[in-house]
């Protein structure tokens, strides 16, 4: 029986190697870096199908290095190399250094910071991160977002253009410009995590990967004094608490499970403990950011033994603060649900109906699901059925639709 290959090996190595090569050779050689890494992976497939090497990662690295050196020698048209790479020996040594494990964090940080260019939208930042750091293909990214591949191709095109116009990647060593980028980076990581966690397509095979990648990249930020801060700890805490609960969000058939029915014993205790540590470290700063508030709310859910034993008053207070800082339909919705838990279904319904004017709300399945849930709790099956019907009509995926159909049938 053959040696098993680590799951996601190719995807992870793709991210590592592209970041390493672009940081070393400069963003003008982005396409060369991508081609070289792709070639190395194709070679790995062609060779390893017959026999897997002792050290798969070293094999890919060596192949990528050799192809990179060949490609650079062949294509001087792209302009001069940085002077330190002009000689063959220097190129080879520099490459060994750039591709080493020790440089990995620095490479990926530089890539991540550079992807969050101010001329690009947040969605494009996330797309670039998914492509270059997480090793997802354009079709895979499109699927995660439930958009056409064309849209992703356009974002990648724009993103590549901006990246390639940079002389060098934004290195952590140039700290002033790095700090200015941080808000965009955190925003992108939040969107990335959310896409995996709340993403409407629970059938997407990359859901869990997107959450763990967001957490991994946040850990990278925490690993450098230049990019670490209490705010980043807050984001890490949020991701830990939410990721801890991923296992029970959907059932074996990929259908969403209501919080009240989730088996909390399956929540990841280690991740929750990590989250608590990060939450503690987030408290050392002077600023209270939206990440702090969201992390606080996620923490209350993660540590509560059951839905009824959840600290709803604290959650409501945090939502009030969050609404002031970062208003939005999802915040309003969840705040209304917290209101229902404390002041009863009628109060919850009132809070929800107050949001009806917002078009984003009325096209959001969870909004109608929340109204249905309240009606169900009051014993008003007919109202509940009506609202579940609406939720189903605006559902965006099988996971959502089936969840509501199921509850509808149980009324």
């Amino acid at each position, binding site marked *: 029986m053959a040696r098993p*290959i680590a799951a*996601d090996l190719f995807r992870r190595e793709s991210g590592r190697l592209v970041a390493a090569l672009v940081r070393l050779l400069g963003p003008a050689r982005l396409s060369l870096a991508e081609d070289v890494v792709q070639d190395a*992976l194709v070679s*790995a497939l062609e060779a390893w199908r017959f026999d897997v090497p002792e050290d798969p990662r070293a094999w890919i690295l060596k192949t990528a290095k050799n192809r990179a050196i060949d490609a650079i020698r062949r294509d001087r048209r792209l302009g001069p190399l940085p002077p330190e790479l002009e000689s063959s020996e220097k190129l080879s040594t520099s490459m060994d250094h750039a591709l080493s494990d020790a440089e990995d964090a620095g490479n990926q940080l530089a890539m991540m910071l550079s992807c969050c260019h101010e001329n690009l939208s947040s969605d494009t930042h996330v797309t670039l991160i998914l492509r270059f750091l997480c090793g997802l293909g354009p079709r895979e990214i499109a699927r995660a977002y439930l958009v056409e591949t064309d849209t992703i191709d356009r974002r990648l095109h724009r993103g590549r253009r901006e990246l390639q116009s940079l002389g060098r990647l934004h290195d952590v060593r140039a700290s002033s410009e790095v700090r200015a980028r941080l808000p965009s980076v955190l925003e992108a990581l939040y969107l990335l995590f959310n896409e995996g966690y709340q993403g409407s397509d629970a059938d997407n095979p990359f859901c869990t990967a997107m959450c763990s990648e967001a957490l991994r990249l946040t850990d990278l930020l925490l690993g450098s004094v230049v990019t670490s801060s209490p705010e980043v700890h807050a984001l890490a805490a949020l991701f830990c608490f939410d990721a801890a609960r991923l296992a029970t969000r959907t059932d074996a058939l990929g259908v969403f499970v209501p919080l009240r029915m989730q088996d909390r014993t399956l929540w990841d205790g280690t991740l929750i403990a990590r989250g608590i540590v990060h939450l503690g470290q987030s408290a050392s700063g002077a600023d209270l950011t939206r990440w702090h508030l969201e992390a606080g709310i996620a923490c209350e859910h993660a540590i509560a033994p059951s839905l009824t034993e959840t600290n709803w008053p604290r959650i409501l207070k945090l939502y009030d603060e969050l609404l002031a800082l970062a208003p939005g339909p999802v915040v309003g919705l969840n705040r209304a649900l917290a209101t229902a838990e404390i002041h009863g279904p009628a109060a919850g319904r009132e809070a929800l109906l107050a949001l009806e004017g917002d078009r984003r709300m009325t096209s959001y399945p969870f909004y109608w699901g929340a109204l249905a849930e309240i009606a169900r709790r009051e014993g008003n099956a007919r109202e509940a059925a009506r609202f579940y019907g609406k939720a189903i009509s605006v559902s965006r995926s099988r996971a959502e639709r089936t969840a509501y159909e199921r509850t509808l049938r149980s009324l």
Partner: protein
Amino acid sequence: MSKFMFVFRGGGFATAGVSPTELQAHLTKWRSWLDGLAKSGHSRDGGIPLQNPGKTLRGRQRTVTDGPFAESKDLITGSLIIEAASLDEAAGLARECPVFEYDGSVEVRPLLTLDA
């Protein structure tokens, strides 16, 4: 039982277009198929992959050209010796080869042995 050679042609990839995850999934299929053949006793050794490009010598002049290249549709990419009761059985075993997913082919050839 007789011996046969599977000659794998094509099934290669354009440089762009196939994601790392898809490449690895395809690798897993190959490994599963080959492990299956080993487990069922049809193959003893791992197959032989061929790199490209190489060189081709041709004709009385022994003209040397570089190649064949990855783009060649019938590029031989590897071989495998298997044992089967008949050519039909061997061909049947070849049906499950993942090479077909990317437009490749399998040539199944009985080994010519010196046994009478």
